[in-house]
């Protein structure tokens, strides 16, 4: 920008440059690492939106911003917003792709802020509800770590006193100090375990929290009694136990929150407003204000706000969200348009038939949401918990009875306590959350974001992979597959003035071939029909020919043809063959024509094709396979894939898909590729393998330690060494997951 002659491709770029210079932010051009996208108009209006006001009259909002490609993008958006009069606070996060805004609604409105972001070439979108970070868990962890380390220090002194004589006064002081530290640890830090245990018991279940809460209660109760009676305590083991478990829980919740946040960002939507026509008057209203029978206007680039009947006007609608097919459909008077579809060319006036939940899109989204509430499955550790608890109590009772009979109560009590202490399933409880958190992280680094650890582990058991065609195996956008340079040159000159997907495909191909673009005169878009215009002094027309073909007609009839099609993603063939090499069965499910489906399947290397089926039939196919005992993974992107995603054992959505689909899926592929499926599978395998190994090791530890305790060989020092040792093995296992995944790659 600096020093170069300022030439702009369009008014949008000029506006963006003027905003940047006006805000004194030319430095952006010295610092940027990647080119920002070209400015485009916002597809929906933000003007009708009024967030809640704070006490001082200012508004706050968090929005997702698309198109942030480098740190400089963040810098320029943030500074442009901060330099806008009326904005009192603005921060943009590169890591999460979100902006936080605070502004004075009397001086500037949200619409103007959104337009400013849009004019820079980035796209702001609204976020739904999202969980705030759980600070209490961090606070509990902090207190537990502080208390545990100090208790250990005190106990180190106590153990040292076993060998060098210790003044009983000091011994008592150390024990009391340890008890003081252990009190908040047991009563406040460990309270999530008690809460979990009570909740489980009330439902008549035994899960992992029950033996943990039991262990904490025994350790602390014994600690109080032993301190009063001047006996040895296990308070150092208690501190270690609580601190380690909280650390495991903290890591797990952070990993899960990251994944959920990413999914919410992907599912964020532009606010939808409608242009309502009242007589001659056109006003912008939120979609919620629309009623059946209202007249609405839809312009090029707008999302249709409600199910409606076209009154007049023509245009082409992109139905990808609803039907999953990429090619726009022409609509005219008397035809029905659906909410959520996008008008890619033309202008429509339509009469509203259904709004919000009543629309087809709304009904599908509601069905999906209902199907998604499947409830959480108990983890494998939770399944072991009842046996574990029962086993521990029985062994402790036997040990107590045995020692009571042969050595009296003075020996029986410490042995019983030792049994209960070393039987605490600390390592067992840590195995699942730590390995799951590491597995989620490994999958996320490979582009697959899971919403829960359950789904990650479930992925390993899958034996059948069903892929949707459009938007999953293919890129979901048209591309030119056959055309001569000359035809393309003229077509591109005409298509420059259109935002139709065909125009985008033609322009992209022209740019890729490096063909210089001539200027077209009197170029005009015939909505839903094609383009007219004059290039090189001759009149031309672009019209739809056979399916997938655009004809360029000159004065003497058809001059040439451009063949377009949705092409297979570049990484799809390799991914499919890798999936098959793992012994998985791969099938292609599509609503498209069998010939098209077969061609795509051949290209991607898939033999099994189920073509021309509707969304319900996709779900039925998945259910039938599951009834045959197969474990099905379904990958899709549109709302039409929703029922199948919900019916499958694991449902994975593509990032470009519909918001409601992203929200019901177990995981989301974050980029425009399909290869992350493989990364996810490997991460799932590594995590699940590690969990099984860690659980085996920790159970082996528990059996050995309990045997030693029953034999009367365990004292507080032995317990304090054994417990962290077993947990350390589990932590080491979780840390190795990333390496395991890399080895396979």
């Amino acid at each position, binding site marked *: 920008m600096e020093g170069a002659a300022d030439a702009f491709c369009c008014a949008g770029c000029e506006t963006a440059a003027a905003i940047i210079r006006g805000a004194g932010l030319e430095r952006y051009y010295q610092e940027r690492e990647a080119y920002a996208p070209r400015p485009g108009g916002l597809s929906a209006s933000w003007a009708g939106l009024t967030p809640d006001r704070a006490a001082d009259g200012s508004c706050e909002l968090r929005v997702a911003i698309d198109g942030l490609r480098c740190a400089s993008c963040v810098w320029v958006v943030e500074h442009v917003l901060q330099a806008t009069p009326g904005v009192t606070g603005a921060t943009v996060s590169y890591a999460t792709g979100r902006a936080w805004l605070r502004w004075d609604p009397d001086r500037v409105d949200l619409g103007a802020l959104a337009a400013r972001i849009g004019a820079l070439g980035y796209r702001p979108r609204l976020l739904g509800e999202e969980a705030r970070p759980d600070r209490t868990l961090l606070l509990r962890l902090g207190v537990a770590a*502080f208390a545990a380390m100090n208790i250990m220090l005190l106990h180190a002194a106590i153990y040292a006193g076993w060998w060098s004589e210790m003044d009983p006064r000091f011994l008592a002081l150390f024990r009391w100090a340890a008890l003081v530290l252990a009190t908040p640890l047991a009563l406040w830090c460990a309270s999530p375990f008690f809460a979990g245990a009570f909740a489980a018991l009330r439902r008549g279940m035994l899960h992992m929290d029950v033996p943990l809460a039991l262990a904490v209660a025994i350790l602390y109760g014994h600690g109080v009694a032993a301190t009063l009676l001047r006996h040895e305590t296990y308070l150092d083991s208690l501190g270690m136990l609580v601190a380690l478990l909280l650390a495991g829980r903290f890591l797990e919740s952070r990993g899960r929150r990251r994944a959920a946040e990413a999914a919410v960002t992907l599912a964020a939507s532009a606010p939808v407003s409608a242009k309502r026509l009242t007589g001659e008057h056109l006003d912008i209203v939120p979609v919620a204000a629309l009623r059946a029978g209202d007249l609405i206007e839809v312009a090029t680039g707008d999302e249709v706000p409600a199910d409606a009947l076209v009154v007049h006007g023509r245009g082409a609608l992109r139905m990808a969200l609803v039907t999953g097919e990429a090619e726009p459909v022409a609509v005219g008077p008397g035809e029905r348009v659906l909410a959520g579809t996008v008008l890619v060319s033309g202008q429509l006036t339509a009469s509203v038939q259904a709004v919000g939940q009543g629309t087809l899109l709304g009904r599908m989204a509601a069905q999906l949401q209902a199907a998604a509430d499947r409830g959480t499955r108990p983890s494998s550790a939770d399944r072991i918990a009842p046996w574990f608890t029962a086993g521990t109590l029985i062994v402790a009772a036997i040990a107590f009875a045995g020692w009571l009979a042969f050595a009296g109560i003075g020996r029986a009590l410490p042995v019983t306590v030792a049994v209960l202490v070393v039987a605490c399933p600390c390592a067992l409880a840590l195995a699942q959350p730590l390995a799951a958190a590491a597995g989620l992280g490994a999958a996320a680094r490979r582009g697959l974001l899971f919403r829960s650890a359950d789904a990650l582990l479930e992925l390993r058991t899958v034996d059948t992979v069903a892929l949707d065609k459009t938007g999953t195996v293919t890129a979901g956008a048209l591309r030119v597959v056959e055309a001569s340079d000359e035809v393309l040159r003229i077509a591109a000159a005409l298509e420059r003035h259109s935002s139709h997907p065909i125009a985008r495909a033609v322009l992209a191909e022209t740019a890729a071939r490096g063909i210089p673009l001539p200027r077209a005169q009197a170029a005009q878009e015939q909505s839903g029909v094609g383009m007219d215009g004059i290039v090189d002094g001759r009149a031309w027309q672009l019209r739809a020919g056979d399916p997938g073909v655009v004809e360029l007609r000159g004065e003497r009839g058809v001059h040439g043809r451009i063949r377009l099609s949705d092409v297979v993603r570049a990484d799809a063939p390799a991914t499919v063959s890798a999936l098959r090499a793992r012994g998985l069965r791969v099938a292609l499910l599509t609503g498209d024509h069998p010939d098209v489906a077969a061609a795509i399947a051949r290209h991607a290397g898939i033999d099994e094709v189920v073509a021309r089926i509707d969304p319900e039939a996709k779900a039925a196919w998945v259910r039938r396979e599951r009834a045959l005992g197969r474990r099905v993974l379904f990958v899709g992107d549109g709302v039409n894939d929703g029922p199948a995603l919900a019916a499958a054992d694991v449902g994975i959505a593509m990032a470009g898909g519909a918001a409601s689909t992203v929200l019901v899926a177990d995981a989301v592929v974050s980029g425009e590729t399909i290869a992350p499926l493989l990364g996810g599978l490997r991460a799932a395998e590594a995590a699940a393998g590690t969990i099984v190994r860690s659980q085996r090791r920790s159970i082996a530890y528990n059996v050995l330690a309990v045997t030693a305790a029953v034999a009367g060989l365990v004292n507080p020092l032995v317990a304090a060494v054994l417990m962290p040792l077993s947990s350390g093995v589990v932590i080491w296992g979780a840390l190795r997951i990333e390496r395991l995944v890399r080895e396979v790659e």
Partner: protein
Amino acid sequence: MDAIVLLLPLALLLGGLFAVLFLLAAARGQFDDLDDPPERMLHD
């Protein structure tokens, strides 16, 4: 050795002070976002 009677509570008090400082910082959201502030610093 008798110094321990004084030093032990003192050490715990000092440690406790830092624990309280950590709690205050965490409660005010200092640890909510650990990714962005380091990047932001490079641009100001």
